[in-house]
Each structure stands twice: as C-alpha cells, then as structure tokens.
C-alpha cells in the first residue's frame, strides 16, 4: 500500500553577479560573475557559500544562524533587501528567465568589504532611543519573589514588534534615511514604540522626545519597510503609532503634529483639508513665503488665487461623523 517517494529536484546553470570591493585593494566597487548550478532548495546564502568554497575564497559576506533568526546575512537580491539564508534562489532565476541574478550589499550604509556593510550607524541610532524597559514601579514587584502581572492582551499589543532581529533590511530600503543621514530609520522607531506601550515601562516620554530628535515626523510613509521586513513587524505602522501617542501625550508644537491636527480640524470644519493655508499652520509665519511664492506662480499662468476653502457637498456628513466621534470619546472617558 505504501508508495515510493521520488522527490522532484531541478538544476539550472545560472549566472550570479556579485558586487565586489576590498578597500585595501580596489578603488571602486565592481561586479564579478560566477557560474553556479542552482538546484531545488538552494538559498542565496548557500550559493554564496558554494562560490566561496569552490570558486573564490575571498568573497566576503556575513552569515551565522542560517535560519532567519540572527539577522546577519542581509543583502540585496535584484535590488531588494532580503535575508540571504531564507531566500530561495531557483524561483528568482526562473522568474527572470535570464538565469541570472544580481547580489549587492545593503544601501544607506558604508561598505566594509564586498557584501559586508558597517551596521554601527543603525545600532548607534537605536541606542539613542532608550530601547530597553525602564521599570514601572506600579507594575513590577520590588523583589524577585513574584513576576509582574500582565495580560496576554496587553502583551499582544507589542508582541509582534519583539520579533525584530535588527537585520537592517528596513534601514537599507528607507526613503527618509536616504535623504537625511540623521534620521533614525524604521527599526529604531519600532523598538521605541514597542517599549513605550509596554505596561511595565515608565520611560515613554523620554522615548517620544528621542524619537522627535531623530526625525519622527520625517517618515514619508512610503511603507517600503513593511514590504521588505522578513519578520513582518510593519515599522511604518509603528512610526504612525508613535506619532499618535506623541500627540495623545500632548505634543502639539511640532510641524508634524500641527500638520496632523490641521488635517483632522480642517476636515471637521470644511469637509476637506485647507491646502492653501497648510504651510502657515505647519511652519508658522515662515509658511507665508511658500504661499506667496505659489500664488506668484499661479498668477503667471493667469489663474485666480484664493485663500478660501470651498465648502464641499459632503461637509455636513463629515461634521456628523465628527460629532459622533466626540460623543463616543466622551463616553469613553
């Protein structure tokens, strides 16, 4: 009755194109091509190791656990940051139909050698976020006779965020890091948020301040970090949530919080955002310069300029929604 098991295993000869750079030897990075027989089950990391073991022992990359939990082996495969150890190579080779793949180091970080980058900048930014629990004395017992009590529901609020393995994929892909080297990067905010909503913690205010110091409002919500995160922790959502708790905690005097507030206030008042006046609300008197410049541009094209918001037909509807929200909020308190 038993049936013989014959597993299907394929092999394709592929070209692996890898970015190389050895600082005491090369002036600039260049590409090397390696021919590798890629088989069913082979990961990007296995291919790199095969090349190192059989073709070029100087090929340099990081790898450790090779089971997607240590976060060492992040590289870019056809420009997307991935964990080399948990990325199957055969489907990629087949997808492109060219039997070729390009492997480069992470972006936004200095290259040390070949595929190895310096991740210290990531860790230094993280360290500024107070990324550790500071005891809330009301929740954590004085002695080690007892653990603190916390419900599974409270834990679930931040549980997924504790999956972060500091692999740096989000940092590599981040649009805000690219233009602003002082910006903390997605994972630092995710970690800051994780501790800020832990009921055993007492340091939320300090972390909100640290987040603002490191560009909390600079994130453009492109959400690329969500796409590349191998642990699905959704850093962009944490950034949004961190902004929310900052406003909830009464921080209304930053450009970002003013913008967020202007959006909700305007929709309540006008049924839409009062875009022409937004620069002033966000940036204060400096905003007038932007408005006047825009107006000059419009006039040049013979367009009529207005600082009035037209009321939309749906405005009464949005007012109703808001009054309902206020009602619910009142009850909640």
């Amino acid at each position, binding site marked *: 009755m*038993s049936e*013989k*098991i014959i*597993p299907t*295993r394929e092999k394709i000869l592929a070209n692996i194109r890898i970015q190389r750079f*050895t*600082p*005491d*030897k090369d002036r600039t990075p260049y590409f090397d091509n390696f021919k590798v027989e890629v088989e*069913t*089950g*082979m*990961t990007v990391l*296995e291919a790199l190791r095969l090349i*190192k*073991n*059989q073709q070029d*022992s*100087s090929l*340099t*990359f990081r790898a*450790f*656990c*090779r*089971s*997607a*939990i*240590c*976060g*060492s082996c992040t590289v870019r495969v056809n420009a997307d940051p991935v964990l080399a*150890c*948990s*990325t*199957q190579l055969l489907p990629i080779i087949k997808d492109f139909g060219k039997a070729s793949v390009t492997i480069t180091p992470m972006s936004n970080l200095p290259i*040390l*050698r070949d595929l190895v980058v310096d*991740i210290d900048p990531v860790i230094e930014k*993280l360290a500024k976020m107070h*990324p*550790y*629990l500071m005891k809330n004395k009301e929740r*954590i*017992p004085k002695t*080690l*006779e*007892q*653990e*603190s*009590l*916390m*419900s*599974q529901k409270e*834990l679930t609020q931040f*549980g997924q965020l*504790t*999956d972060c*393995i*500091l692999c740096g994929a989000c940092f590599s892909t981040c649009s805000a890091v690219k233009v602003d080297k002082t910006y903390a990067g997605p994972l630092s905010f995710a970690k800051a948020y994780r501790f800020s909503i*832990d009921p*055993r913690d007492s340091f939320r205010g300090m972390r909100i301040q640290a987040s603002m110091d490191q560009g909390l409002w600079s994130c453009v919500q492109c959400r690329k970090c969500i796409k590349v995160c191998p642990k699905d922790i959704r850093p962009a959502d944490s950034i949004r949530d961190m902004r929310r708790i900052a406003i909830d905690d009464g921080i209304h005097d930053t450009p970002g919080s003013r913008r967020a507030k202007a959006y909700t206030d305007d929709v309540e008042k006008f049924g839409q955002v009062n875009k022409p006046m937004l620069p002033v609300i966000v940036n204060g008197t400096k905003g007038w310069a932007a408005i006047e410049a825009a107006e000059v541009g419009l006039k040049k094209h013979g367009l009529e300029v207005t600082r009035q918001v037209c009321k939309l037909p749906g405005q009464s509807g949005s007012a109703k929604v808001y009054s309902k929200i206020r009602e619910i909020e009142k009850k909640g308190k």
Partner: protein
Amino acid sequence: MLTYDVLIVGSGGAGLYAALKSRIEEDLQVAVLTKVYPTRSHTSAAQGGVNAALANKDSTDTWEQHWFDTVKGSDYLADQEAAELMCREAPEVIREMEHWGCPFDRTKAGKIAQRPFGGASKPRACYAEDKIGHVMLHTLYEQGLRHGVNYFNEWVTLSLIHNGQRCLGVNALNTRTGQLHTIQAKAVILATGGYGRVYWNRTSNAYGNTGDGAALAYRAGLPLKDMEFVQFHPTGLRRTGILMSEGARGEGAYLLNALGERFMSRYAPDKMELAPRDLISRAIETEVREGRGGPDAEVFLDLTHLGMERILQRLPQIRQLCIGFEGIDPIEEPIPIKPTAHYSMGGIHTDINGLSPIEGIYAAGESGCVSVHGANRLGGNSLLDILVFGRRAGNHALEYARQNDFQPMITNPLATAEARIQKLMDGESQERTADIRREMGNLMAEKAGIYRVAADLKQAVAGLAELKVRFKRLKVRDKSKIFNTELVAALELENMLDVAEVISQGALERVESRGAHYREDFPKRDDKNWLKHTMATKGSDDRPILDFKPVTISRFQPEERTY
C-alpha cells in the same frame, strides 16, 4: 595594551548575562569580545522554552521535581549538586528576565505561561510563542545598552594567556582591521557556545558554533569534560539541518522511508513517531544504512495526510521553514529530513561557579560543563543553564577581580598568535579550509555520530590525525587584512579539529551506552564502571589524554531511564 578587569568572550545568553551582572555593579571595567554582533548569537535560535518550577500552570510543581527530571534525563551523569543549584535558582532568574522586560507569554491570571516539554513531569517550560531564545537574548542586549556594556564586535579570540596559576588575558584578532591585540584581564569568562559544527553539514547549529572556547581552553592546558556527549535531533531539514520541531510529530506527522513505509513500526510499534529523540535518530540511521533512504540519504516527514487546513492552522511556522529553506511545500509533498547534531553536553570543566582549574578563567553556558546535562540534556534546560551559570560566573569573576591585582604580563604575548596567522597565510600546500572542513564533518557524522562502534571510532581518530596533518600545510588564499573571513574560517577549523579529536577519543574509550552516546558494541549503560566524567587534557604529543572523575550523587540513586 587594552586592559579590563573582566573580559567576557562570547555574546550569547551566558556572556551577556555575565556582562550585565558585572556592569550593573559599576566599579569595574568589563567588556564583551564577540566574533559576531551580540544579537546574532545562537541563543536566538532556541524556540521552545526555558524551564523553571514557577508552578504557574500546575501548582504542584516544585524545583525538587525539576531537579529529579534533570538528573534522570541526564542518564545520571549530571552532578546532582550542580543540577540542584540550577533548578533551585531557576524561578529567580526567570523573574529577573521578566522584570527586565522579556515578553513571556501569559496565563489567564497574567503570570508567565508554561508548557509541557519532553522528559518533564510537569508543564514548566516558560515560553514566548516559538522564539524564547530570541526574546531573551534581545532583552539582555537591551539592558546591556542601558547599562553601557562595552563590546568588541567581530573580534576573534586566538588564545588564552595565563601563567600556570592565574589568568592574564587573551590574544585576539580585530577582523575589521586585521590587527592583533593582547587584552589584559584579571578574569576571562569563556561563553562561546557549543561545538555542533564539528559535524559540519549535519547540525542545527549556526556556522560559528565551532567549539572555540573549548579549543582555547584545551590548548591552554585546561581539561574538557564529557565531550563525547552530543545530542542529535531526529528531524533536521535535508539541506541545512534546520529543525522541524517535535510539534509536527505531535500533530500526527508520519515518518516515511523512501519506500513510503512508516518505518517506526519496526523500532517502536507502540509509540511510533512519538518515541524518544535518540531512538528515532537511530531508527532513521538504520533505514538509510539499509538502503531505504532517499537520494540524498534522507527520510521523510510527511504532513500531507493532515490536509491543508490543519497544516495552515497548527503548523504555519513549520510550513514557512520548509518553503524558505528547502523550497518545498509540506501541504503538497513530504519533507526530506535527516538527524542533526543539536546540542553539546560536554565542554570546559568548571565548578559550580563556572571556575576552571586556573584562577580567573571561567566558562559558562554550552561552552562549559558544570555538569548539569550529563549524558543528555532535557529540553528547556539549555536556556536555564546559560542564565544561572552566566550569572554565577559573572558574580564570581567580579569578586575575584575586586580582590586581586593585575598579574605581570608575559613577555611578547602576541608572538605565538602572530606566528600562527603568518603560517596560515604562507601555507605550503594548496589545501583549502572548505575541503578539510567538509571531510571532517562527513567523517564525524559517519564514524562518531549517532551510532558508534570501536572500529569506526578508531577510523575517526586516525582520519582526524590525517586531517590535522593536512591542516598544518593549509594556505589561506585571501591576503586582505580587512574582514578576512577565509582566515577566520581556518582558525575555526583548527578549533574544530581539536574538539573532534577529543570527542572521538572519548567515544572510543567509553565502552557503554549512556544518554546521547550509543555504542553498538556496548548497548547497555554500565554504572559499575562508567558512572564517571571523561576529562580530556592535551598531551605533549598533541593528542588528548583521558582521565576520569566520579559523578556527584547527593540524592537520586541511578535507575533505569524509561519514559
């Protein structure tokens, strides 16, 4: 010269715990030296749980029962006073982790949740989904950031320096620059993890679990204990050795050979797939030996009959692992698996404070051997071991560093380290690290793995001696000073060859079967002659000299180990 009161080598759970303990006291200079970044360490791979008799799930649980389970699980080779201490201190260290923010799962009452585990009489493994090691390691790292622990990241330790009585420090290589350094330290704690990689591709361990600490200690003249005891997990993925947890078999997965037979009916007709780990590992080996394995000497873990819905609902992680690491979907086809070297019970011989025979040199965690795991480690006790003995070693080393001054450093301490590196760079043959390493792994898996027999073990010993000769002529081709991973791999291989030799020699001389050590020619446990620890030191001819030390039995007399 860099100078620290306490230097910790290794940044897994044991190293970080020791560092944190030392750092919180603030009066001493403490640093952690690690060949990776701290959060990369292999502690992060532990999935299931950490044992402590908190009695949150079963109010009748006590640390004494935990103690008994540990001793029984060890096949009575654990030192009972050490196991007692570990089980007694367990609840405190777990609560300390919790107070530091470790996100344990919770019971309805809001306490730390606990689950049942193999070999445990009560549900006492505290868990965080299937990532307990990861969250523990990160909690320790986070608290370390808070307290300002110093790290030397991506530094490889080359040798221990001592004057015969006391620790002086270490030599180390900064891989980023290629520079060698002597670091002077009053106390050094080795917390470098296990040596599963001596089986190279047949292990669940990280690439770096190459027995560095054990080899450093061995070369410095310190004894290694019970090195022949290596635990194999029956179900590792074919290509990578990554574990398919016991949960799959718990859900009703079948083990099939290449003929599609549920072969466990031949070995454990009642328990079938739920027989103990060691028995299943041996059954798989037998099937493959007798020609009923797959094309790559594998057998199959079959989930297909469970159906898509059940697999998606109950075993989503396992499915993800198969897709990511093996390129197959277990909903559609059976998972190819092989037994995989999983945990090193043996290690550097220490007392209950982690202290080696030389003052100021300590070892903790998987790199050390107190011994609490004896011949076979119980699930959930490895994470506990690193916490309890990481803490004890940290505390003891601190006290030692406070009460003692720096000893005069030997003249030109770097000389031997420099010569060693130079020799590797100038090797006289075309021998390659990768080739010797692969042959070593195959040799160990075939001759000193799950099944052991005198003739095979002799071949292993002889084969390793040959590989060591070849290693002496090995040549590192990469000449760059910067991030020379080929050089690091050669250094690791040298460590593994020493460790493999000690494992094989110990396995050859131990003519009984106990726990993870199974001798086909001596299938019974022999308490009369072998209830003792193997102690290996390096002889003048470079070969291990074995000696034996009695086991401490304080409460539980040896009985047959049945479940």
